[in-house]
């Protein structure tokens, strides 16, 4: 593997960059793997990477129906944070954030993790109670968290309209939160995993599972049958479809989540600002676009498209909170299919089928968890038993009642 650095870039520029190698190979699938990961998004590729790097299992295939990173990995608003209320959530998201902080160096691929600070605004008394509870919990979990006054918010975002319909009463700041370059995460993990021997197989659709004695033994794909000792399914949006192939149901519904970007402009917003009560989620990318998270359509759909009313319901609040953006223009809107659980927490789980593991249900918040999710999922698959951080996220919590209800507590869990 070419090592990436300013020096390799210089060296290659002499020859007009003719000598760069493929970032990852394009192998034909082998007959058999120790582990097959279904789904070549960020979480799946990260899983493969950590299997090879930390669990000593490199006879791994990542099977992707389309092109890696083509699903939600490349369709989100790139926000990274770990300021969650419950210990379980804080556990997995903070595990992820710690990995983010060194990820570019670890992968030798600049994923542009940019801890530019992330604000949650509070607009009413209930919001203040919510951030009060969460901010304190976060701090006691050893994660950075600060309360800001409206004046301090104004300092960070001078053009914010503090006196909007629901006036800004305060905010919760996670200084280490920020953004990362979403595509780079998939590509960086793919390249690093590939270098350790993982086969990344694109344009290969899983059409069924081979299950004997309630134990999975492989997958049937559009490129033939592949045997596997263990199978991990990491297919945001489509997990119910795969579960259906394996003969069980999940407590999940798939809905289109939308996002949009404005035309690029010179830097004006240097942090990420989220507002649950006014429903505005905004940051500015390195290219200069305002990246805005829209809502999800409230019906199941796999069409990767949303409705215009969701865009209206998103841009309205943005202009209410940031009136100077009224003359800005929407450049592009898009949708992804997110798999939503009732408690707005993910599912990392063993399943009714032996040796088959699922990692899904990240809803609107999967991107930020990518390294942590992949890491603990890899360890879980390798051990055959869930990693302690992943343990509480079992699908069986919906039987016992031990939900991790980030949704109910915060009203929004982006």
């Amino acid at each position, binding site marked *: 593997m070419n090592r990436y650095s300013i020096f390799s870039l210089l060296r290659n520029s002499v020859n007009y960059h003719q000598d760069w190698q493929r970032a990852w190979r394009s192998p034909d699938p082998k007959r058999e793997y120790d582990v097959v990961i279904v789904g070549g998004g960020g979480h799946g590729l990260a899983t493969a990477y950590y299997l090879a790097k930390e669990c000593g299992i490199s006879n791994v295939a990542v099977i992707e129906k389309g092109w890696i990173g083509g699903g939600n990995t490349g369709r989100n608003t790139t926000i990274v944070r770990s300021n969650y209320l419950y210990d379980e959530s804080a556990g997995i998201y903070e595990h992820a954030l710690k990995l983010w902080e060194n990820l570019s*160096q670890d992968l030798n691929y600049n994923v542009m993790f940019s801890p530019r600070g992330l604000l949650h605004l509070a607009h009413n008394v209930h919001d203040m109670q919510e951030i009060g509870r969460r901010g304190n919990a976060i701090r006691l979990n050893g994660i950075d968290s600060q309360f800001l006054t409206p004046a301090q918010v104004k300092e960070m975002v001078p053009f914010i309209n503090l006196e909007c319909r629901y006036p800004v009463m305060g905010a919760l700041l996670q200084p280490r939160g920020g953004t990362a370059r979403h595509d780079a995460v998939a590509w960086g993990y793919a390249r690093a995993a590939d270098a350790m021997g993982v086969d990344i197989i694109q344009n290969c659709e899983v059409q069924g599972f081979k299950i004997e004695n309630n134990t999975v033994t492989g997958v049937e794909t559009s490129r033939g049958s592949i045997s596997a000792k263990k199978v991990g399914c990491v297919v945001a949006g489509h997990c119910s479809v795969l579960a259906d192939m394996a003969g069980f149901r999940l407590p999940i519904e798939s809905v289109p989540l939308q996002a949009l970007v404005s035309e690029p402009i010179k830097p004006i917003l240097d942090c990420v600002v989220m507002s649950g009560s006014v429903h505005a989620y905004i940051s500015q990318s390195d290219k200069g676009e305002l990246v805005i998270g829209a809502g999800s359509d409230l019906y199941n759909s796999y069409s990767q498209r949303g409705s215009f009313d969701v865009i209206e319901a998103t841009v309205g609040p943005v202009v209410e909170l940031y009136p100077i953006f009224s003359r800005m223009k929407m450049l592009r809107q898009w949708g992804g299919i997110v798999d939503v659980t009732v408690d707005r927490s993910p599912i990392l789980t063993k399943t009714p089928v032996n040796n088959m593991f699922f990692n899904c249900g990240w809803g609107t918040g999967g991107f930020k968890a990518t390294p942590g999710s992949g890491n603990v999922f890899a360890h879980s698959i390798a051990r055959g038993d869930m990693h302690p951080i992943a343990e509480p996220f079992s699908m069986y919590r919906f039987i016992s009642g031990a939900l991790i209800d980030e949704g109910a507590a915060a009203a929004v869990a982006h």
Partner: protein
Amino acid sequence: MSQDYRRDKGGQLNRSKTLRFWYDNKGYEGYQGDTLASALLANGVHLVGRSFKYHRPRGIYSAGSEEPNALVQLESGAHTEPNRRATEVELYEGLSASSQNCWPSVGFDIGAINSKISRLLPAGFYYKTFMWPGALWTTYEKFIRKAAGLGKSPTEIDPDSYDKIHAHCDVLIVGAGPAGLQAALHAGRSGARVMLIDEKPMFGGSLLADSALIDGAPADQWVTKVINELKQMREVTRLTRTTVTGYYDYNFVVANERVNEHLGPNRKAGGPKERLWKIRARQVVLATGAIERPLVFADSDRPGIMLAHALRTYVNHYGVLPGNRIVLITNNDSAYHSALDAHAAGAMVEVIDVRRNPSGSLLDTAREQGIHIHENSTISAVDYRRGKLRGIEVMQLSDDGKAVRGVPSDLRCDLVAVSGGWTPTVHLFSQGKGKLKFLDDEHCYVPGERAVNNKGFEAGSCKATWSLPECLKEGAIAGASAASAAGFESTATEDASGTEESVYGPARALWILPTDHPVGRGPKKHFHELHNDSTVADIALAAREGFVSIEHLKRYTTTGMGTDQGKTSNLNALTVMSEIRDVPIPEVGTTTFRPPFTPLSFGSIVGHDRRELFVQKRKTAIHPWHDRNNAVYEDVGDWKRPYYFPQHGESMHDAVQRECLAARASAGIVDASTLGKIDIQGPDARRLLNMVYTNAWSKLAPGRCRYGLMLNEHGMVFDDGVTTCLAENHFHMTTTTGGAARVMGWLEEWLQTEWPQWQVYCTSVTEQWAVASITGPNAGKLLSTLCDQPLDDESFPFMSMQSFNVAGIPARVFRISFTGDLTFEINVPARYGLALWEALMKAGRQYDICPYGTEAMHILRAEKGFIIVGQDTDGTVTPLDLGMDWIVSKTKGDFLGRRSFTRSDTTRSDRKQLVGLLTEDPSFVLPEGVHVVEKLKDKPPMTMLGHVTSSYMSPNVGRSIAMALLKDGFNRKGSTLEVSLMDGSSHKVTVTDPVFLKSGSE
């Protein structure tokens, strides 16, 4: 300054109206009817901006919405807008624009250093570097951010207004070129409701730049005739300056009309800047035309190089001849129209045709006119110096077109026009989930199968129909068919016969033209994508590194991700990749076209839903009194509720303490109108209450009230309130303010979908009743002065309701209490709410009646340990967790949520339970949300036992009080724990029962 490049005649301009405008602080003149681009070209200005990445000088490339280069910052101050396409901005008196992405000026730009080190900045260079040392990335990032971004955001509040409107029609036609006009005419004649929309200020589409004949007369005469006929049709709506930006499911179409924008910020006329149309059409006819495809040669991004049809448009439509010595380079015949028109307008014209032995009538005409044609040749170099295009080098092509041969010859010129054929504008079709198909012969994508819910037709060059007669015919058929499909009788007639200008010879499938060094391996650059500065070499690099799918290619090279969304570049990118991979284009992939077609302003999307209309403010009938009496409001949902009533400059704390004391000392009054209210009637009303509440309702007698908790099926509390039996089968339910709609929906859901046979009806009556609640030891005495009713415990016991007149107003009076003191909740029809309140205030004067807000209300209830759902519960709390097992019936059988109690997690004895907390220091008020720990550790992490849900200074208890959800809380009563505070300190607390005030009558 004079308009040196303006033709003496021609163009659809109002030459009598000279307009003065400023570009980069320099004054120019143009005419009404110009765009900023045409006016600049008329003044010889080509250089208008710097490119995104390398800051290369760039000029005006097109004459329409596909413009990748000529982006300007329009106006300044509150009216400023970044990234406006000069090719679309209509000129108005006093227009002021400036160049973007350059410093200090567009002519001399420091950022152009990027161009010098461009070899270090190939596609995706940033993924490969800036990693060491890790901590420095954020520093590098600052510079990257500053270099990117093009224009600047406004920094002032938008002074303009925006309109938004719904529309319905039978046939919507997008594009008013020859096909679209024909479609409108034929659909319109059937009597169908038709909308015809075009993005330009006038209808005509390609005919605006054309010199074709229709029905034997110049095309513009035909256009006028058609428009006149359309004007006569009542059911036809014509919209110019309107861009269809989005095509969604079920023929839902979004279009943005620029209503007054073209008049500039100082316009006299009122009205909105823009109007957003949300259209439902039964049939959508797409006549969206085509966009000219560029040829890519060495340094073909230089100012002074533009599309051939843009040249023709400037010459014919705008009366501008943008160069005196013009060279066209083409791989097809259509460019010859531009050559001939430019020649006729007086330019010296030569054509470089990449084809071997091209022939045809157009070429014959060109040769007859003395236009020299360089066959089988290409441009191998561009001489651009000191802001001006000075000439080019021409070389012969090799047989396969992949290399040049011979020696270059210099050709002096000040304008180069390029044509690589045409790309159908299929964006909307694709947005509407239509499947595209690739036409091998035409080298382009055209509409294939439509999505099932997006019915309609396509006509004209958007489906690669190039001849005018054919376009007219297709338009007529599409319009008539669409009208028929929408239920109108219609047939296509052939009353418009266009004159075939000429028969085109075959094009040469060659778009990336070689130079004297291999493409991408030398100083000259081949930009296939002007907006984001993406080169052919970038695509080759992407392919080399495995980013071969169109999605990877786009993302890795940023091709097509600019504000033009790759309108001129996408197909060339696909072609390059297909050649590198040696696979057909469809195998490389199709870009997914996403809305909007051109960028859509936030203001337009928002329309009227801004400021006061953003979210309705709901106010109670008593609100005018609150306003007059200095209320500070709290937002509860979309209600405005009085939070407290400060007097004489009181602080919130002082006001609230005073209100709490007064309410218990004598009499307090609170506006409780916002509580949800539901009228429930029918023989199965009790059955319903038994299912939705945890306690038993079978025996509640008429006139009596009962408190209830509602659970979801998960067993968690989600609402509470008092429900009163009005008559045997008739109940009045109250809900929390925020939960009103949710509870009503919950009841209807069960009744309509699960128990439709039950005989019970629910009717929301929330706003029917205004509610004033008077509380305190003197509440009864006060009320008795306004009614003739005995109010003693026997006549009117606690938890009962009576109807009688209060202050002459028919009222339902509930003796229930949220304070623990004697309380009467007086419900009157909303129209009398204010009168009731004023009567109570007047009568209460002798009892020092004190109006109080929600904060005092919360303290008064907390003193008695009453919960607030949503504050002391959060969707994870069962009644048992609240210590309210008394309200869970063990005998009545099933109710919603009950089964969930017996799951393993719900039966845990150490669940979080509601308790009271008393601070060691009685004057210290715990912040709400702080967490309780066993013992504070030096540093986190530490195990949290639970959090403080409610916390106040209670003047009636005489100390601070708090409620908390605490793990194993019931067993911890009496024990001392610590609360961790944000500053790292801690405070000792004792766990208690959550009832702090034992006194109180109710």
